[in-house]
């Protein structure tokens, strides 16, 4: 059984968070993410959760870290300028293995850019915005249905792997309304608790995150962003301690990457020209494929996990087509991935559009595919 709801992308994100059990939200309003905050401000207190408007985004991300250690499932939403301010806190959350979800609704940058206009310029920031070696899982919805489902997945992934998770939406999707099929219940993952003196920052199997104690339950707990051993004691000079910790944090995500991969591959088997896209742009790619039916066979790979990157569907597409188009609302970020993965097996062509929040239209994408197909 499912219920039909007519929601915007932003409302679907907020509803997904509530369904997944998010019970703490702190944030600072910023276009085009503000409807998420407004919805959480209305709904969270009614369900026994806590909503806080922070004085800025730096405070918001650190409130999330504190709340998570007090056993909350925390989330915040922001946009480019606020996302930049949250990077320091995200790095601390990686190092302290703190489950939390940050939603970045992308708008045109850099700087304050065009506040209400769509862009996809934050992909590389989502992956590499912090210093040091680390992987934060990044998911990207391309429909309002995805906004609901991937938010649930993001919250559950944060809990399962004891990690921060980023959901990368964009202004177009945030302000698109579609019918959503909402299941009556969704899976809720709960973080593991320590048993029998298990260390809070060590694990014999790097695929399995250590258990997370709850503050206030009597644990002598040290939580630090500095290099630490399995019990949280700072080890700021020992090369072995650093290697052991940072490699384990990396492997915790990398060795579980197959579980994180979400994508759609449409019409790849018979494709002459390929398109790899994510977010709102992926919808135009699917529509362009339909516009070209009977003229050119187009294969579309819609990426919903952006980090780690599902490489296999891109390789399969490259093996079949005469060229791959990578449409993006940026001057080219995903295209680097596709070039790296394809590694010369087929030409990779960027299709960039920025400014004014104007979508990449299905019609112009279809026109470009026709040119490529010759």
């Amino acid at each position, binding site marked *: 059984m499912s219920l*039909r709801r*007519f929601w915007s992308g932003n409302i679907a994100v907020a509803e997904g968070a509530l369904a997944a059990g998010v019970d703490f939200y702190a944030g600072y309003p910023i*276009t085009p993410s503000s409807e998420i905050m407004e919805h959480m401000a209305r709904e969270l207190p009614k369900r026994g959760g806590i909503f806080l408007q922070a004085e800025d985004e730096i405070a918001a991300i650190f409130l999330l870290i504190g709340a998570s250690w007090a056993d909350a499932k925390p989330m915040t939403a922001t946009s480019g300028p606020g996302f930049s301010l949250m990077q320091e806190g995200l790095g601390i959350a990686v190092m302290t293995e703190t489950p939390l979800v940050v939603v970045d609704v992308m708008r045109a940058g850099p700087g304050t850019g*065009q*506040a*209400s*206009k769509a862009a996809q310029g934050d992909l590389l920031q989502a992956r590499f915005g912090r210093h040091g070696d680390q992987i934060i899982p990044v998911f990207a919805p391309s429909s309002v249905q995805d906004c609901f489902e991937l938010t649930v997945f993001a919250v559950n992934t944060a809990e399962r792997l004891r990690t921060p998770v980023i959901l990368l939406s964009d202004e*177009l999707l945030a*302000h*698109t*309304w*579609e*019918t959503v099929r909402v299941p009556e219940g969704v899976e809720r993952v709960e973080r593991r608790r320590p048993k029998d003196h298990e260390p809070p920052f060590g694990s014999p199997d790097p695929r399995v995150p250590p258990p997370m104690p709850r503050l206030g339950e009597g644990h002598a707990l040290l939580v630090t962003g500095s290099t630490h051993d399995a019990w949280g004691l700072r080890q700021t000079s020992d090369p072995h301690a650093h290697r052991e910790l940072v490699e384990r944090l990396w492997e915790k995500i990398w060795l579980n990457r197959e579980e994180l991969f979400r994508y759609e591959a449409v019409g790849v088997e018979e494709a002459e020209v390929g398109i790899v896209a994510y977010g*709102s742009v992926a*919808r*135009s790619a*699917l*529509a362009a494929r*339909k516009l070209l039916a009977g003229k050119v066979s187009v294969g579309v790979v819609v990426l919903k996990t952006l980090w780690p990157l599902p490489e296999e569907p891109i390789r399969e597409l490259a093996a079949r087509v005469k060229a791959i188009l990578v449409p993006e609302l940026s001057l080219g970020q995903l295209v680097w991935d596709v070039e790296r993965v394809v590694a010369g097996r087929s030409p990779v062509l960027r299709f960039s559009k920025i400014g004014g*929040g104007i*979508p*990449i*239209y*299905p*019609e*112009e994408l279809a026109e470009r595919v026709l040119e490529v197909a010759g």
Partner: protein
Amino acid sequence: MAELRLRISGIGGQGIVFAGRLLAQAMAEEGKEVALRYAYGAEVMGTPVHSELVIADEPILSPYFREAQVAVILHTRAFSEAVGLVEKGGLLVLDSASAGGPFPENLRVEVRPFVEKTSGNRPGDPGRLAPVAALGFLAKLGFFPLEPLRRAASSGRGAQENLQALELGFRL
């Protein structure tokens, strides 16, 4: 029409987003597949705003389109960026005060006094019922039925004046 692509353009403060949501809600409750997207400027009020809808019988692949089959323009400030985005043979519906021209060829053009008839050009009112009146007009032309719009408009703040604006548009 198996799929209708409609763009309503005006300025912030006219209720362009509201009208889009009203029509989307009405059609969704009719069991249609609906996608609505709206865009506004950082200033929110006074700068160009668009609501774009796809109303279809089948699941909608993309909510985003370049050329509308039907474009409604309700303010001169929205005219230049919206007037070129109508497909050949499409319909351009204009408020009388926005009808600057020149219009692209191969379009059907309908001009009606939506703003004047709904707001009487009162100072400080950019025509905040004009978009709802335009929906009534499109219903008269047969793009969608009036009754579900009436139902959707009959609750919430301003229900009475929204219903009046719908009826007024239907008669224009």
